[in-house]
């Protein structure tokens, strides 16, 4: 019996060692902006850490990736006619992704993508099991759509968008979303949805007029950080949810913050909250 146990432990060790074999690769890819006057980015990133920011001139894009060639494939292509950059990192299986997310963070894959400032960008980001830090400061974002599985997403609009953004859409599965200075996005339409997890949206920044915001939260919490001078209208369908509407008054099924009519800028929040807690935090 003792011999059998030793054999099993040996087998366990051999198998365990082979399962964790890594084969790291590094890829850098950049392109000069040239005559490109816009850029569409289609990004699929399954597992690892993603950062997004502004590229140094005169580059159109600058990508640096580190990935495990035994478990992942990364590919990129650029279509000069449609001005579309496609970057994809595919993990072999979700099990692999989970193993990556549970293993040492220092050994996980990484993609750092920098994009040209000064031209309109249309971003289509499909994220899997990732930690994403998206700093869109100093970029001209025309539209951004983020769809994620299990992520920790941090989105920052550090400076005002040169032109109003056509569409901002974040659809998160499980995880946390933090948006800093959403007001700087100057979004004509913004949608933030979270299925399980937390949403923290800071509406600070430079913006005027009305900002429509659709919020859909299921099984989780949403915190809306709103500057004091902003008038808020809240029309949330809540099912088994708690909406912190202290200081709000209801008129025609819509909750209005105190001094709504006098405010020079407004945020119009609609959507739904199911099994969730929605909290409004006023910022000075």
């Amino acid at each position, binding site marked *: 019996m003792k011999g059998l146990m030793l*054999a099993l432990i040996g087998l366990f060790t051999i198998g365990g060692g*082979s399962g964790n074999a890594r084969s790291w690769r590094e890829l850098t890819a950049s392109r000069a902006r040239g005559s490109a006057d816009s850029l569409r980015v289609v990004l699929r990133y399954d597992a690892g850490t993603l950062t997004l920011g502004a590229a140094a001139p005169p580059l159109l894009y600058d990508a640096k990736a580190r990935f495990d060639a035994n478990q992942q494939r990364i590919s990129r292509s650029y279509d000069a006619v449609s001005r579309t950059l496609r970057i994809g990192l595919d993990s072999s299986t979700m099990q692999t992704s989970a193993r990556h997310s549970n293993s040492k963070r220092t050994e996980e894959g990484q993609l750092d993508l920098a994009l040209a400032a000064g031209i309109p960008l249309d971003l289509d980001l499909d994220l899997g099991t990732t930690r994403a830090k998206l700093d869109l400061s100093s970029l001209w974002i025309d539209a951004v759509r983020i769809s994620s599985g299990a992520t920790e997403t941090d989105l920052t609009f550090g400076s005002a968008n040169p032109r109003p953004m056509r569409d901002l859409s974040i659809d998160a599965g499980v995880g946390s979303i933090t948006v800093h200075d959403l007001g700087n996005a100057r979004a004509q339409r913004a949608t933030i949805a979270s299925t399980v997890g937390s949403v923290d949206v800071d509406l600070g920044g430079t913006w005027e007029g009305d900002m429509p915001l659709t919020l859909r939260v299921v099984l989780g919490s949403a915190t809306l950080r709103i500057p004091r001078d902003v008038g808020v209208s809240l029309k949330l369908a809540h099912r088994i949810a708690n909406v912190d509407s202290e200081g709000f008054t209801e008129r025609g099924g819509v909750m209005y913050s105190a001094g709504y009519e006098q405010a020079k800028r407004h945020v119009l929040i609609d959507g739904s909250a199911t099994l969730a807690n929605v909290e409004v935090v006023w910022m000075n």
Partner: protein
Amino acid sequence: MRAGASVRAVPRIAIAMLLAIVATSRLRAQGQSDTTRASASSDAIGAALDSLHRDANGLSLSRSALSESAHVVEGNQHLTGDIASWHGPLEIRGIVDGNAVAIGSDVVILPGGHVRGDALSVGGQVRMAGGTVDGETRTISAFSVGPIAGAQLTPAQATRRSLSLAASCYLILIAMALAVAIGARTHLETIASTIRTDFSRSLIFGLLGEIATVPLFVLSMVALAITLVGVLLIPFAAVAYALATLGALALGFLSMSLLVGDAVMRGESYVRDPRPVISHLIAGLSIFLVLWLLAGGAAFMGLAGSVLRLLAFLSTWIAATVGLGATIITRGGTRAPVTMPNVPPPPAEEYAWQTPTPVSGVAAARRPTPAPRTSEP
């Protein structure tokens, strides 16, 4: 004695089987790698160009475009196609209409150098030293071609992984078995006796339990979410629920393993009372281990391997399901199973055993009597 000897032989047979399986898989893997090495060394440049073509970040390059050492495109040169160097730097001072590629070295774009395609270095850098590149500037540290390990394992890898998984599960279960045998022996034996006396009911309860696991989880989460205080408890409740479910499954499976161990070691259990729970548990778990080792060892055998895996899975699943059912019935072994009451036989009539009497009774016989005496004269 014979049963005991056969049980003692089980570990030896298992060790021999393990060694044979590992040796077979190693030989197969070694054979494959030798073949690959031989073919790769026969034409390294050809292989590199093939890898460059198949790499998602590579490109197609003809052999004629490649210089087998360092190469310089002079300022007065204008190349209409691609240019590449093999283990030597590629310096561009002139114009290249195609791509500029260095395998195992750097691409250097010097003043006056103009690459209209891509500049690519494999294992080196692309250095912009005053020239221009119209296409993409790209570096890859090494080729990444071939099957993705996680998606498509080689037979040797698949075998090793399966065996390792079976061995690790067995070791974990052994540790759990020791803990349960020491801390919850009576619970384990109660569940095991329930399985023995009420197998079909345990199976039905186990199936129902498995079906109800997810709906019950959702219901309990919804119930907690209704109240504000409950919302805060959701993460803890979710973890507790998962632990309870897994614990019930493990306890049930161990009870079933105990029964299997009883069956294997019955020659000894007749002699010793109370039975040695730990050794019976280990014997029972070892039977399941052997099934999984066979299935894992046959991972490279195609259909036969699949059939063995299916058999191992079915036997384990049935054992776990029945065990779960018995765990539910006995509330984790804390209650004795509800069984049909023993109805005592009706009390026998006193002395009935002495003269069995037919139900219909016995017809009375008339006693013969003498004829009446007539009057005497």
